[in-house]
């Protein structure tokens, strides 16, 4: 936490967004810098049930509990090993862990596919990164908007987002499962995204 530029950026980002600091970021920093097992245990207690539930849902009926356990453990090991790469200016711990869990899930699903492994999952799905502090700042503001606005989404819209992000279903799969036209799924998601001010103009 010395006064280097990165830390100044974090401080100013936090001041400018006028938000409470990420309660988990400090724990990740302690894991990264001191290999602090007590800090890691707090992260473990909070995130293990969430990661496990996420993996159980997304692996569907075919996913068994012991597999979900195993992959949850894999995600937590990555959290321990990659803690130094976490940058609080760029993403919250929630988002960082979500992307690790998502990538681990994709990796698990693809392990059984015929693939000569020229490319790794993280060549395609990177952890959040952007080169500019100003962009980071805008992102952290956007994240706050999302967190606040999500509580006001109608169930109909929340349901499709839930299927997409928790169950890992594509637009096509959601349409099929809910017996809706693809266009309806797409417009529900777009409506939800515009309420969350994720303004994809296409």
């Amino acid at each position: 936490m010395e006064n280097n530029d990165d830390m100044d950026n974090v401080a100013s980002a936090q001041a400018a967004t006028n938000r409470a600091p990420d309660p988990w970021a400090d724990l990740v920093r302690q894991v990264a810098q001191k290999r602090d097992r007590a800090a890691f245990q707090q992260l473990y207690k909070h995130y293990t049930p969430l990661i496990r539930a996420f993996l159980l849902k997304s692996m569907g009926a075919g996913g068994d509990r012991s597999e979900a356990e195993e992959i949850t453990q894999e995600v937590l090991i990555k959290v321990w090993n990659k803690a130094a790469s976490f940058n609080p200016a760029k993403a919250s711990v929630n988002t960082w862990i979500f992307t690790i869990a998502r990538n681990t899930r994709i990796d698990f699903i693809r392990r059984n596919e015929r693939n000569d492994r020229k490319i790794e999952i993280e060549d395609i799905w990177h952890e959040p990164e952007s080169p500019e502090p100003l962009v980071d700042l805008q992102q952290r503001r956007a994240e706050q908007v999302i967190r606040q606005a999500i509580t006001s989404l109608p169930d109909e819209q929340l349901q499709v987002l839930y299927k997409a992000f928790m169950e890992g279903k594509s637009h096509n799969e959601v349409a099929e499962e809910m017996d809706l036209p693809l266009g309806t799924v797409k417009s529900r998601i777009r409506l939800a995204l515009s309420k969350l001010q994720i303004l994809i103009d296409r």
Partner: protein
Amino acid sequence: MSSAKAGINMVSFHPDSRFLTDFASGSLATSEAICVAAHLEFCAKCRAHVQQLSDLGAQIMTRIEPEEAVDADDEGFARLMQKIDDDAVHQQAEVPAPVVSAAPAQGLSLPRVVQKLAQGSIQSLNWVQLGKSLRIAPVNVGDGVRQTSLYDIRAGGQMPEHEHRGEEITVLLKGSFSDAEGKYVRGDFVVRHAGEKHQPTATMDTDCICLVSLERPVKPSSIWYRLLEPFVQFRLSGFSN
């Protein structure tokens, strides 16, 4: 909002909300995801959207009601730390894997994912020459559904007119090309649907390199290429094993 980088490239064709959402939620097929990832390196705006969508995924994840409140217990934690300690012992014994140096080919900076596909040099791919101006290098991404390839169209070269039988995604990596619908430059993410017919032509000044993901093989319109087609499909499918 748009960064200087995006401004210079003037990327004007982007993946739509379906592509970006399915990408962020991790449900996009590998071949399509590779195209989105390549586009993201050229487009700050879409990068920002993907980050926002990941934030959204994280918010939804943290709102889950876990089925069981228990079993993030001390015993489970002890087992996890044991595994981490065991892994650490193993890793010390291993020689660290060398970092693949993805040297840019002839000053051409390719997106990371394409560099990995080409393993540093696009010249080393299995290129199949089709006529004078076009060569295609199929790459196996383990998708099993879609065909992923790099296209290299010689400056001023024209592709045979063809009709799409399924969706086609093209990401421009170098140069530019045009068809009846418009002109496309580096970074553009262009989607064509089944039934659409076009004849892209690379601009005169430079060769054009594209990343292409095809849902189904295209159908050439001209007699000459139709005669060639069984041969081409045979050659291409031969490489995708």
